[in-house]
């Protein structure tokens, strides 16, 4: 059998295989006396400049996308997501009560913090660990990040309106009536008065 034919066989075997193949396994499919190492060396060279390369991994051989083209196989997708109500509330509590421990957030909210909420807030780079409380167990305290201030257009965390200001701005009333309306089984108020500078990321 000609060398070129033997190379074709090695090529096809490596292509179709579901796992890397050893030179011994490949030699089993070739006529006796074939120089498998030479064949593999030739094949590697033939593919050297191509979009796929023949590589040796842990003593076995496989085809692989050329490293400089690996970017083709990676796609980054930006997804806009909405925070859950629980996450928004947690973020609000952390921003108003910081530094605050996880247990304290749970106490304030009256429910245990479901897994992933803190992760989400930290992934969004709004919340960061701040230190440890000097109490038994030395729990981690959380607070908001600079990114949080930038995102919400605040100069400092003190710029967050207090309860009285929230009430004056109609937030609490709004919440109240919407709740009462819900209880009365009426249309809940969905209006979202736009605050200056609150729109846009």
């Amino acid at each position, binding site marked *: 059998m000609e060398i070129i034919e033997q190379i074709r066989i090695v090529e*096809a075997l490596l*292509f*179709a*295989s*579901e*796992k*890397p193949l050893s030179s011994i396994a490949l030699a089993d499919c070739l006529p006796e006396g074939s120089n498998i190492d030479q064949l593999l060396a030739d094949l590697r060279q033939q593919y050297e400049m191509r979009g796929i390369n023949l590589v040796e991994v842990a003593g076995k051989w*496989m*085809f*692989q*996308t050329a490293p400089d083209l690996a970017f*083709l*196989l*990676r*796609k*980054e*997708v*930006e*997804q*806009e*997501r*909405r*925070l859950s*109500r629980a996450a*928004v*509330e947690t*973020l*609000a*509590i952390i*921003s*108003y009560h910081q530094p605050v421990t996880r247990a304290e957030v749970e106490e*304030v*909210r*009256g429910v245990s913090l479901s897994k992933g909420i803190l992760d*989400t807030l930290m*992934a*969004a780079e*709004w919340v960061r660990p701040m230190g440890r409380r000097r109490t038994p167990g030395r729990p981690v305290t959380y607070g908001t990040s600079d990114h949080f201030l930038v*995102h*919400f*257009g*605040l100069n400092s965390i003190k710029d*967050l*309106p207090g*309860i009285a200001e*929230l009430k004056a701005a109609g*937030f*609490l009333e*709004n*919440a*109240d009536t919407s*709740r009462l309306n819900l209880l009365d089984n009426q249309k809940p108020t969905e209006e*979202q*008065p*736009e*605050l200056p*500078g*609150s*729109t846009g*990321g």
Partner: protein
Amino acid sequence: MINNETEQQSEFEDLPSVIDSPDEEENLILDIDGFEGPLDVLLTLARSQKVDLKQISILELVEQFLKFVDEAKVQKLEKAADYLVMAAWLAYLKSRLLLPEEDSEEEFSAEEMAARLTYQLQRLSAFREAAATLMSRNQLKRDVFARGMPEPVIVTRNARYELSLYELLKGYADHKTRKSIADIRIHKRDVYTLDQALERLRGLIGIAIDWTDLFQFLPDLIEGDEMLRSVKASIFTASLEMAREGKAEIIQKQTFGPLFIRKTDRDD
């Protein structure tokens, strides 16, 4: 095509077979189960004529088929029905072919019927050849193979969270509101309803001849201060209601002094 093999019949390997009877070697026992219907039998028989399908002798074919059905050991009637219908049709065709053709506008001529049968046999034969050609093609995962170790495209989803300051503040306010609502515990209380009070007052006011202290009309047995307050409130409201209706008059001589009530005369 007709052979003596007694193949194990399975759902996936059914070959037409004609089984030799050990007792009567001269009589072939034909196995209908091995065929894919009467057309399959006809095609097999036609092929046994060893001529081009276009030149088969329909008369001979009819004879062959009738003989086949006659000899076949038919056990399942529902399976045999197809064969019997075909046999009847072929017998009819045979008679038409043998008798001189009559002019008939409604029916097809015997030649047309025979041509139709030939067409059907040719068509079935052609599709069988096509099937064989199709199956002999290189099939994926049998003869040719795709990449054994495909490299999947890894999609990284970067979550970008959108939240406005308004939503943040609203979240906090909602939390505060819910919290304050949650702290108020309103227990269900026993109350003396306005209706009860009205009923009592309307019933009793007739007895009162002159100005009477409103609280004279309170029910006798009242348990607890809360109930007393409820009763007083309801009786008072009931008195106002009756005054509004023009059925009673109320007078109070001094601030925080007792309330006096009497029936109006106009009613009488």
